[in-house]
């Protein structure tokens, strides 16, 4: 208890020095909290936009479909999936899709296409499909003989709204599937590659075309909070409990995007190392100075029987008290800053395009790790660099430090 008292009261002895030490810890905490909140907010914003825009946060397929896609690997009973997804809280929306490759032609222009059968109502609810239509209109029903083309594909075919497009593919029964569809709209997803091949058909029409009535290849699911992907993915998997189906989070079906994001996010640690150095240098400097100044005092403590470990405790407790105070103050200030940037964001005069997604404002995110990591950084770096001065204090030679004078 007396060691606690000495450590606590020592904080107030050299107020200016304490202030400098506190400032480096407080500043380090705020910087780290803001930086982590900012990085998480920006990256999660990109990920959320990317997944919501096209892929969904979770996808359901027949087993192995992702590794080796095939026309025949279909989900045959959507009713169970619909019932399950309705029951899982946190699921925002879902949409079934059908995929195959084909050849589209208009007059003398021909292009390879990816035929996507989509449920017009569900797709719009899940990925805001209608908002991406830049010309023409949305599907009138799930069974209409209508097509919407990606912008790039429309350019290749030199197609305009109301043109009739011929498409050929292979149906599931082995026959040649071919039909003529009226072009009712042109869409721009933000991803050029997709837009150069995208041939959207209403789901029922696509199922009829491919002789896959009632069957789909994929169900894309969006959830309310990106951070819940892992949890909800597990719940869906458990509830479906079907070995023929595989439920994947976005990190699996968009692996290259995930790896790119992860690599970018790793860069954050370089900044955190810089912050650790700032805190460490600030603390080491002042703690070492005060230990050197109090050498005689530590000498007296040692002379009257204080153990070296107790002297170490005094020095470390002093810096721990200060660090805890700075963590609390920094958490309050960091929360205020992150709250401001989470709600207001930072508007970009020139929007950034990342993977086909345009970001107009960067926003911070408030999460536990943006406080937990800075707290650890401050506490551990301050504690670690204080070890050297603390050991020095503990090794004080009483006779030499006091010289009995």
């Amino acid at each position: 208890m007396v060691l606690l008292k000495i450590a606590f009261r020592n904080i107030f002895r050299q107020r200016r020095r304490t202030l400098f030490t506190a400032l480096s810890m407080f500043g380090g905490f705020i910087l780290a909290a803001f930086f982590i909140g900012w990085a998480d907010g920006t990256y999660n914003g990109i990920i959320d936009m990317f997944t919501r825009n096209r892929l969904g946060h979770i996808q359901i397929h027949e087993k192995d479909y992702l590794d080796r896609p095939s026309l025949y690997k279909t989900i045959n009973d959507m009713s169970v999936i619909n019932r399950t997804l309705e029951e899982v809280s946190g699921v925002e929306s879902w949409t079934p899709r059908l995929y195959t490759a084909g050849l589209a032609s208009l007059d003398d222009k021909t292009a390879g296409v990816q035929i996507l059968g989509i449920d017009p109502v569900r797709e719009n609810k899940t990925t805001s499909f209608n908002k991406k239509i830049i010309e023409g209109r949305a599907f009138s029903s799930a069974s209409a003989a209508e097509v919407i083309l990606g912008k790039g594909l429309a350019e290749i075919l030199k197609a305009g709204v109301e043109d009739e497009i011929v498409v050929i593919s292979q149906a599931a029964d082995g026959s040649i599937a071919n039909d003529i569809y009226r072009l009712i709209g042109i869409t721009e997803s933000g991803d050029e590659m997709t837009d150069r091949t995208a041939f959207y058909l209403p789901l029922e029409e696509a199922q009829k075309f491919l002789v896959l009535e009632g069957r789909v290849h994929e169900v894309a699911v969006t959830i309310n909070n990106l951070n819940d992907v892992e949890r909800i993915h597990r719940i869906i998997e458990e509830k479906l409990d079907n070995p023929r189906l595989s439920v994947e989070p976005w990190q699996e079906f968009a692996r290259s995007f995930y790896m790119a994001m992860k690599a970018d996010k790793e860069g954050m640690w370089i900044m955190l190392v810089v912050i650790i150095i700032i805190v460490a240098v600030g603390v080491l400097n002042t703690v070492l100075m005060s230990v050197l100044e109090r050498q005689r005092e530590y000498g007296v403590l040692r002379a009257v029987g204080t153990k070296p470990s107790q002297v170490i405790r005094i020095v470390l407790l002093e810096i721990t008290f200060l660090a805890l105070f700075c963590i609390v103050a920094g958490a309050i200030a960091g929360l205020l800053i992150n709250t401001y940037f989470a709600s207001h964001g930072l508007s970009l005069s020139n929007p950034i395009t990342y993977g086909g997604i345009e970001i107009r404002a960067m926003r911070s995110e408030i999460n536990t790790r943006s406080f937990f990591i800075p707290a650890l950084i401050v506490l551990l770096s301050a504690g670690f660099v204080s070890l050297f001065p603390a050991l020095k204090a503990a090794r004080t030679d009483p006779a030499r430090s006091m010289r009995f004078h």
Partner: protein
Amino acid sequence: MEEMNVRKIKDYIVYTEGLEKTYKDNGLEVKAVRGIDLRLKSGEFTAVVGPSGSGKTTLLNIISGLDTATRGEVWLKGRLLSKMKKRELADFRRDNIGFIFQAYNLIPVLRVEENVEYIMLLQGVNKLERHKRVLEILDEVGLQGMGNRLPPKLSGGQQQRVAIARAMVSRPALILADEPTANLDSKTGGALLDMMKELNRKTGMTFLFSTHDNIVVERARRVITLQDGKILKDEVKER
């Protein structure tokens, strides 16, 4: 013969034999203490005097175990210091030696009471006993009612009284006082010495001073004069 020696050593609080201390200063050997045999019996009130550099402080440092001798041995209360491990020596020092320094050396962030009870805390004395002893000793050194003050708010004389209280409160066998009056005016110094002499009489604790202040010399019952690290004179005054 050896048994006789042990018995002889145990008769003394401090028993040194052939103490020598050599320092290296810029590559040059400096002999601070040269073969000192010192014996102090329980309850003595002794001053070690001598000019600066005569080895007084070094001698006290070696006796207290804060420094080690290059040659020779020290027995305190019959225990041979050189045979003790560091931790054991620290505990032994805490329990058996009280220190009074020229510069008071109080812990500035602890109040008077806390400074005085610090050693008892390390010794694990219970709270009630600590409180009782602190009040008693503060009363004896004339600091009643000042327990809540911080050392920097006290005069030099008052601070030295706190230091005396701190040194004596755990009832050690030996009090080592290094130039305790050097920072005090003669009146304050004299009063403090009278107080220590009275405490010595009442408690039977052994006092060993290092000093060149006449205030101490006049009151000491035994005066040991050092010169060039050797005992020049050892006089016991008549009562």
